[in-house]
């Protein structure tokens, strides 16, 4: 029961955060392009491609998490996405690059606080994915019991 409540909290929290993060970026696309660029990882055309597609992906993922449809896939994809963000953030921090986190809008430099926050979200997503897959298997086993 406690795990189920935790799953609900994780799902709604991640869903709202993702939908909000995507919305903020869609509203200010040029600012998000500059945030992506400040990581110093990509050429301008790739920066533009990422900046124009990622926010919509976040919105869709956020809505899927809120609604709970195909949760195990949405949660797994969230783990991959947050994992990617974390790799980029840690890489920028380790290289000493003064990058804009770009997580929830402009003007927030990558710092131990932003790294800790995103790591927390990542762990939250991992829990959600693992729990969703376990739940799905348990339900399947209940419907089709093994002799």
């Amino acid at each position, binding site marked *: 029961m406690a795990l189920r409540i935790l799953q609900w909290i994780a799902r709604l929290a991640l869903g709202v955060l993702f939908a909000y993060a995507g919305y903020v970026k869609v509203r200010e696309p040029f600012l998000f392009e*500059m945030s992506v*660029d*400040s990581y110093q990882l990509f050429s301008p055309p790739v920066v*533009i491609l990422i900046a124009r597609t990622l926010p919509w992906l976040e919105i869709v993922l956020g809505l899927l998490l809120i609604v709970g449809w195909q949760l195990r896939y949405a949660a797994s994809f969230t783990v991959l996405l947050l994992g990617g963000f974390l790799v980029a953030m840690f890489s920028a921090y380790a290289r000493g*690059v*003064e*990058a*804009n986190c770009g997580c929830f809008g*402009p003007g927030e*430099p990558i710092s131990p606080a932003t790294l800790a926050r995103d790591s927390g979200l990542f762990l939250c997503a991992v829990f959600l994915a693992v729990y969703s897959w376990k739940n799905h298997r348990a339900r399947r086993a209940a419907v089709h019991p093994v002799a």
Partner: protein
Amino acid sequence: MRSAMRYMILALLICGWQQAAAIAQESAESCAGGKLTSPVKIEVFSDFQCPSCREFYLNTMRQVFTNYADAGKVCVVYREFPLTNIHPHAFEAARYGHAALGLGPRQWSLVADALFSAQDKWSKDGQIEPVLSSALNAEDLGKLKEKMKDPSIEAAITRDTEMARARQVTATPTFFVTGKGKTQKIVGVVQYPILSRFLDSLLTP
């Protein structure tokens, strides 16, 4: 009741005077490139000894000066934010930068070009003057040396630093772009093609 009204009027007058003084100070600042009347303003908080600031200036801002500031589209204000705890010669370099700004935008750009281009050289030993003597002509160098004696330069750098702290600048380069009635804070190095897209979006009606 009357004395309360008098105090209120006095308080309003003081507030108004302070605001007017702040506006006067703001408008007294000079653009390192472009005009104060330009529709877009970029304020860069920078440190001459910071490698990211070097990259941002040489690869991005120089093109902004050429393509936007010279065309009167953008006013670029460079503010000193020397990170003296990690860059021992940054304050001295900032003094030269600010003194050059006092001489004019042309001299400032020559000094900024020289300081950023030869950053590796003077960062090691703090020998800034030899670097500048090869960038400026004898007349400008003489004027610069004279300007360096002005005690108001240090006060101006302190003012820039305090402004940076008040605006929660924690890293260099950090820049603020003001256009279409909004100011946006951006941290880090941004490539010219990406920054120019943002500037174009602010310049289109």
